[in-house]
């Protein structure tokens, strides 16, 4: 028991020595500067998504997402997941993006965690911000 209790204080002391925490800092606090940086990180990905959406995917047939979805309109990110009758199952937005990549764009689909697919979702959702979440809606 006694030995177990000692470990946290030793880790704390080591951390102080290594400068991992500032004096008095608590792990779950963050500053305005942090928020600014995080927002900037997000905006960079949205911008990347905007480029990909407007012809940046490099697909051979040159068809781009914005040709059918100006400003990402008619993509309805707020309605996913929803039953997609053409697929016969509940689908997510990224699966539908991949459907578009494979069909009108005639290209290879992206992995779910591909940064490009994440960026496309960031752009599409950003253009739809302020709209109420309505999963399942048709």
């Amino acid at each position, binding site marked *: 028991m006694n030995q177990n209790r000692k470990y946290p204080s030793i880790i704390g002391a080591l951390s102080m020595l290594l400068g991992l925490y500032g004096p008095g800092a608590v792990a779950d606090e963050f500053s305005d500067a942090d928020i600014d940086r995080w927002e900037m990180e997000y905006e960079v990905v949205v911008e990347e998504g905007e480029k990909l959406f*407007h012809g940046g995917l490099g697909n*051979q*047939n*040159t*068809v781009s997402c*914005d*040709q*059918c*979805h*100006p*400003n990402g*309109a*008619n993509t*309805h990110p707020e309605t996913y997941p929803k039953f997609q009758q*053409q697929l016969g199952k509940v689908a997510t937005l990224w699966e539908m993006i991949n*459907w*578009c990549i494979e*069909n*009108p764009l005639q290209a290879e689909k992206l992995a779910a965690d591909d940064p490009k697919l994440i960026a496309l979702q960031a752009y599409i959702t950003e*253009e*739809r911000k*302020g*709209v109420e979440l309505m999963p399942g809606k*048709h």
Partner: protein
Amino acid sequence: MSKINRRDVLRNGAAVLAASSLPISMVELAFGADSDQNFTFAYISDSHITQIKGNEFVRNWDRGLIRAVAETNLLDPKPDFVFYGGDIAQLGKPEEIDHGLEILSALRGDVHYVMGEHDYYVDLGEYWRKQLGPDHYSFDHKGVHFVVLNSILTHEKWMHQKWQSGMDRMKQMARLDNPDGQPFMVGEAQREWLRNDLKKISKETPIVVLSHSPLQKIFKSWNFWTDDAEEVQALLKPFDKVTVLYGHVHQIQTNQIGNISFHAAMATAWPWPYPSTYTQKASYLPKLTVEMNRADPFFERDATGWQFIDVHTGRADVSYLLPDNKNRTVAYSEKAGHPVDTGSRKTDDRSPPQKHF
């Protein structure tokens, strides 16, 4: 069948045509005192033929135009002529214009062309005019005065600024949601031409105007808009019956402003969302519009289509031929004083796919 009037025949015929894609024959019946002046014409628009490389083109857009051409050739009674509403090409390349014209060359009868921005901005319309002639003109047909305008011009300063290449300028204009987009306009020179053209026309003569962009203001961000629309409308105001037909918007739109009826054409290539579905900016879709059904992207031709126009007593009834969707007819109602979707339900009773969000 003998009691059916001519418009019903055309409407029903269109439904049969789309369902079966077989030639149909229709009996032309007397329709009012001016029946010999009644006529139809077909109206195809926005094919956006896209060259990939060499003689390889995007199949999807090719198929849309090929289908519209084939179905137009099956119309019976034969339309007097065909209008093509602009945007043959995606990036205005000679290869794209030529490939589009090759597909359109299968049409039987005369075709009149309207300039679209996708045909124009790579070389300011030079190749298009070389192949098709002037981009604004007029002619008379069975007592109706037809006017074609090039409505997709923009500020001279922007058009003639130092561009890396014509293609650079084309790509700026080809992006519908370009935040640096430029507004379409007919321009002073063409308005002056129109003023003179209309001088010799009596006020009772029905006028049909074709432009690529709407000669009204709906949504500036996507150029569902012509900057000098009011000036053009003012020139058309003295006439009793005016119809404006336009492309560009890839969707059904219907409006009446004073004496002018407005109808938009479907694209053969792909549909566009209604502006209200982009919630970040205000838009002004005419209230008379009964929105087309929402696209089912899994069916390649859904929410695309083409039109034929029945001109009678100087008014134009527009029938929309919609693959995989119920065909629609928007006809001028003398009683209402504006075009009415003949199959439309009251706003609060529309089918789920007509509710865009």
